[in-house]
């Protein structure tokens, strides 16, 4: 039973998740660009490469914006969270081995200890975000159930992945949860708030261009 499920999750379900992720991302981009073309063409005429980059660089460099300096803990946690979230799935040796078995491709892998720590950073950051949502009135005020669910959904594959890596008792079924939760996260990503991963490049660039090229002021 477990074996069949494993086969299903590592084969067709994985493909399905990747396809949904790619298709979803393309769909989101397509709908946004269609709206720009139909209704807000002017946006393109204000976009400036220089100021888009200025804005992106300032917001992707720790402490390069005023708000990051005002919230140092949040800044450190956010950066650690985002970096680990992106790096661990792609550069984990256990994942790379699977890809090598499947397609014969492989690339550089994170050292084990680093990977272990990084996998734990993600759920730890999720706990921090959850506490922040509860404790800070201005955040609690705009937080819905979905925001907590999302944190859980992000933490789950990392927690279960770590569990399996440690080969703790009963890690076999946990592996299934790990795979399934990771796939759900990937497949739904374009349709949740996590789509900021895709759209943020455009909102930031537009704000950066307006502030830089039109308003001659800093937006960071």
């Amino acid at each position, binding site marked *: 039973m477990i074996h069949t499920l494993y086969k299903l999750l590592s084969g067709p379900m994985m493909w399905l998740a990747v396809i949904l992720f790619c298709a979803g991302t393309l769909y989101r981009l397509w*709908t*946004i*660009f269609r*709206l*720009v073309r*139909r*209704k*807000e063409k*002017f*946006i393109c*005429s*204000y976009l400036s490469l220089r100021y888009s980059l200025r*804005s992106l660089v300032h*917001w992707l460099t720790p402490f390069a*914006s*005023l*708000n*990051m300096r*005002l*919230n140092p803990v*949040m800044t450190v946690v956010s950066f650690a969270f985002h970096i680990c979230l992106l790096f661990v799935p792609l550069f984990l040796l256990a994942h790379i081995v699977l890809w090598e078995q499947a397609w014969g491709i492989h690339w550089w892998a994170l050292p084990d200890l680093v990977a272990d720590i990084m996998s734990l950073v993600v759920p730890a950051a999720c706990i921090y975000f959850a506490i922040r949502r509860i404790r*800070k*009135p*201005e*955040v*609690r*005020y*705009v*937080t*819905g159930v979905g*925001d907590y669910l999302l944190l859980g959904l992000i933490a789950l594959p990392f927690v279960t992945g770590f569990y399996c890596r440690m080969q703790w008792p009963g890690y076999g079924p946990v592996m299934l949860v790990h795979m399934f939760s990771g796939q759900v996260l990937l497949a739904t990503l374009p349709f949740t*708030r996590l*789509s*900021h991963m895709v*759209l*943020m490049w*455009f*909102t*930031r*660039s*537009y*704000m*950066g261009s307006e*502030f830089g090229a*039109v*308003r*001659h*002021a*800093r*937006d*960071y």
Partner: protein
Amino acid sequence: MAEPAEKTPLESIPLAEPATALPVADAGIEAGVQALTPRTIADTVRRVLGAETGARLKAYLSTCTHCGLCAQACHFYLSNAHDPSYAPIGKIKHTLWELLKRKGQVSPEFIRQASLIAYTQCNMCRRCAIYCPLGIDVAYMISVVRRICRALGVTPLYLQDTVNSHSATHNQMWVKADEWVDTLQWQEEDARDEIPELRIPLEKEGADIMYSIIAPEPKFQAGLIYKAAVIMHVAGVDWTMPARPGWDNSDMAMYSGDYDIMGRIKRFHFDTAARLRVKKIVMGECGHAFRSVYDTGNRWLGWRMPPIETQHAIDFYYDLLTSGRIKVARKYEEPVTLHDPCNIVRGYGLHEKARYVVNALCEHFVEMTPNREYNYCCGAGGGVINCGPPYKQTRMRGNSVKARQLEATGVKVLIAPCHNCHSGLEDISQHYHLGLEVKFLADIMYEVMEK
């Protein structure tokens, strides 16, 4: 005793009561709400959101991670004891989120609250825009809410009255055509007592500069026209002012959400400059008017940038001082501080030029903190002060953070190179017993220049 006995120590200023709890009687909003039906609301919301919004709104609403990091940007939030309903995203929660979630199926009462939030609890100052990590523009979203409220006829009475005036007279203050010319001639006459050969050239075709101002100047502050005339005369500028409508560069329609009227009056202003065949427009010390000419109105009309070169007074004074056309006889001695107006600093980056001008004119300049792009809004702009007396307390309670910022400078002369800021800061100074003298740059320039 040096200080008035009733002076309130700032720390004891009551902050907690939300402004929405204040009893506000506004006949404009009242009448608008009375006329609403669920059907008109739903249709109008759908129409405005469907026809006028697109990728921006969609991207902003779907990427916002509800992180609340924009809260600390907003003076309303900071001043109302960190009440989260005043945080930028808190205001969106009570307006756009609901409107979208319920597809416009909201009650007239909801629209009343949305109107109060959009018109009187957000100055559209864009300070939160530089706080949001994702580049989300809350001020833009508030402008969408205003647009919906305006389309539903739920606008504060005073604000709507200025828009009606724009529509009927092409100026904001119901200044009649003959009053306008009379005022200019009166100021010219007064100024000629000081400089006999001074003129305020009216309707001079082909002049280098058309000088345009906002209607409150002829209405309440005619002395500013006098001072501008002296500056122009001494600098030897080839300038003119229109004698016919088109002289007012202000724009309350931009803030009420009456974009058709905004477009009309902006076009009229540009057309007037074209009719006079001037090389450029110089505008008086007003921030919102500059936003309308440079950012909002021109775009509504389809011009990426203003069709005629347009300069704000600070920029113009900077040129006059750097080119030596205005020389300073003796610098202003008292210590001064400078308020960076949102619409020309976050809106046009004039902060360094403003500092150059202040330092050129004044002996002793003290920065307030935060400053430049990070300055706190005056709380008056964005049309909020134009919503009139019913909302004065909302403004005052909503900006104790500004009062604290001003008091911390220890300076008694405050330069505010913007009309809305000027009036708003005078109110703040009075309300919090700061005893500030609020000045325009022109006031100081006139006082210290070689004539």
